[in-house]
């Protein structure tokens, strides 16, 4: 019991006790994204923009999904973007998590350092990158008169989503050391999860009440719904907030605990 507490304690304190290392790793991985290619930041933003355009075309133009009445008379593209950009940060973190430790195997086996900074910096990098997109979107919305007081909560919700993601990343990256197949499995799961989360469609398009109630338990839905409520309506639903907090805390603690527990074995397996 005491050891468990100690591990979790160490995990939580990582950003404070190893600030400089986290900063260096994050800076390194962040700038590595564009040092190697000519396009640089352009590529990072192009992928979500291209995807949003495709989905907007398919759903708004071909399927004629109408603006969602729950969120006022918002155009489908805005509705989509608000959900899609935070999702993209999440999906990218999870997608990279399985190779996070394997890519740094040489370092982990040869140098003694607090390995737990890796899931932290590995999650920070996609979130920092996509926060750029989110901020640009918010600026656009503010210019068009959407800004409201509730927006000040947005960073807190994004932080909760970050904590939730980081827990999953810690869990997946430590398991993938033992089970390399996880890489393929996770890629598949992300696309399943994407379509099970009301991002490209509003949740009220699901006819059955029973099915819809299951969907509510998807934490990513809660996060995305919170963004939409705050940004478009300036209000917040407590149930979504509760689900978000519970999932974020659980994922962060369990993922971190498992990571710290498996950590001593990394050297043997990598």
């Amino acid at each position, binding site marked *: 019991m005491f050891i468990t507490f100690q591990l979790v304690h160490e995990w939580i304190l990582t950003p404070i006790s190893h600030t*400089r290392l986290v900063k260096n790793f994050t800076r390194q991985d962040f700038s590595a994204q564009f040092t190697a290619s000519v396009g640089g930041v352009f590529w990072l933003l192009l992928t979500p923009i291209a995807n949003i355009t495709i989905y907007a075309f398919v759903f708004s133009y071909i399927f004629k999904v109408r603006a969602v009445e729950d969120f006022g008379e918002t155009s489908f593209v805005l509705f989509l973007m608000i959900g899609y950009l935070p999702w993209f940060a999440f999906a990218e973190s999870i997608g990279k998590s399985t190779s996070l430790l394997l890519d740094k195997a040489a370092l982990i086996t040869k*140098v003694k350092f607090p390995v737990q900074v890796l899931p932290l910096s590995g999650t920070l990098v996609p979130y920092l990158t996509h926060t750029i997109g989110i901020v640009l979107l918010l600026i656009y919305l503010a210019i068009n008169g959407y800004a409201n007081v509730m927006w000040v909560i947005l960073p807190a919700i994004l932080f909760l989503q970050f904590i939730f993601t980081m827990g999953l990343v810690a869990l997946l990256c430590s398991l993938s050391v*033992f089970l390399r197949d996880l890489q393929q499995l996770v890629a598949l799961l992300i696309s399943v999860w994407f379509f099970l989360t009301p991002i490209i469609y509003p949740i009220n398009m699901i006819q059955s009440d029973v099915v819809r109630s299951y969907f509510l338990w998807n934490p990513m839905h809660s996060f995305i719904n919170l963004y939409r409520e705050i940004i478009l309506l300036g209000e917040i639903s407590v149930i979504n907030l509760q689900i978000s907090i519970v999932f974020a805390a659980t994922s962060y603690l369990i993922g971190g605990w498992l990571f710290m527990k498996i950590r001593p074995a990394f050297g043997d397996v990598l």
Partner: protein
Amino acid sequence: MSDKALKPSVLVQNLAKTFKLYEHPQDRLLELIFRTKRHENYEALQDVSFAIPDGKSVGIIGANGAGKSTLLKLLVGTLQPTSGDIKINGQIAALLALGAGFHPDFTGRKNIHLNASLLGVPAENILQLEREIIEFSELSQFIDRPVKTYSTGMYVRLAFSIATMVRPDILIIDEALSVGDMAFQKKCVTRMNQFRLNAKSMVLCSHSMFHIQELCDFTLWIDQGRVKEFGESEKVVGHYEDFNNKKKSYNSIREDIPEAKSATGQKNNKEIQECRINSLSVCNEKNKEVTEVKPLSTLILKMQIEVLADNINGHFGFAFMRSAEEPISSFLSTNSENINLGECKKGDVITVSLLVEKIAMRNGEFFVLGGLADKSGLLWYETKFSSALSVTSTKGVGPLIMDSTWTIEKQDD
């Protein structure tokens, strides 16, 4: 003695490391779930104990696969021991792989910063450190270029400079000196010696016996995962070299050498024995019998022969032998003009001694063979082996040592 001197900087007790070898990666998971054994154990290290006194440096030697790298990884902490204890007092910096922490796309300067933070250098020291590292590595021209453009030598120079500049209490180096040009190697050795002078500990793993002797106070010899010997470098390196030399010959020495003491139990097919060697002894210049020989010292080989038949006209011979099959050096009285014993008759007892000066063996064990041959020197009436003599190892490499004198003259124009 002060407390500091007593406190070891590294204390290893009964250390063991067992690797679980799985045939398939998924077996590890299946074993976890079904709790059935699906691995083979490989014991990389067993029962390793040693202590490094504060400020001393230790070399680790042994054949490939003996467990040296495993031991280093355990010391650094990237591997966890299966059982046993490692106590380390002080901060460790390790050079286990060349630039393990380097990111190829980034400049040398950026990599210095990242590595320094990996090794836990306080932020306020980092700028001064950066200057020192660049200066020492002689890479100022290249420091702002990506390290992927560096040559292997430059890579090592940067890695070595970083590891030693962060001023750890204990520096661990794995074979780093084998790369890099001579000039930089020399610099590294100087740097490591400086490190020793500052009373910091160092653990060095190398195949270069020269570097081990030059840089390490003590040496740990690991053979098949166990400590074969731990002690002063000169001694251990000597034994190690000797061990390797012996492995080259086909036979193991112990099996070949007839038991020296049992003079009567010797196999002898001849019906009539012409003579018997009563004793064979090896003495120092003070005529005291020895079992250990210092290189370049003097030995007196003595043999007492009892003649058992008439009309024996013989010659004497001695030889230094590594094993029954492998002579090192031989001495025959047939080669000397002025020795002529003449005919002997039954009952004569002859004592022969030979003065050998400046023993040239540097290390290892050897035997003395004494014998009596007929006049032609082809038929040996009787031979006898002494018991094993060991050479006290000295600094230096190679099996032989020769008496030498230096003359150095400087030419002034």
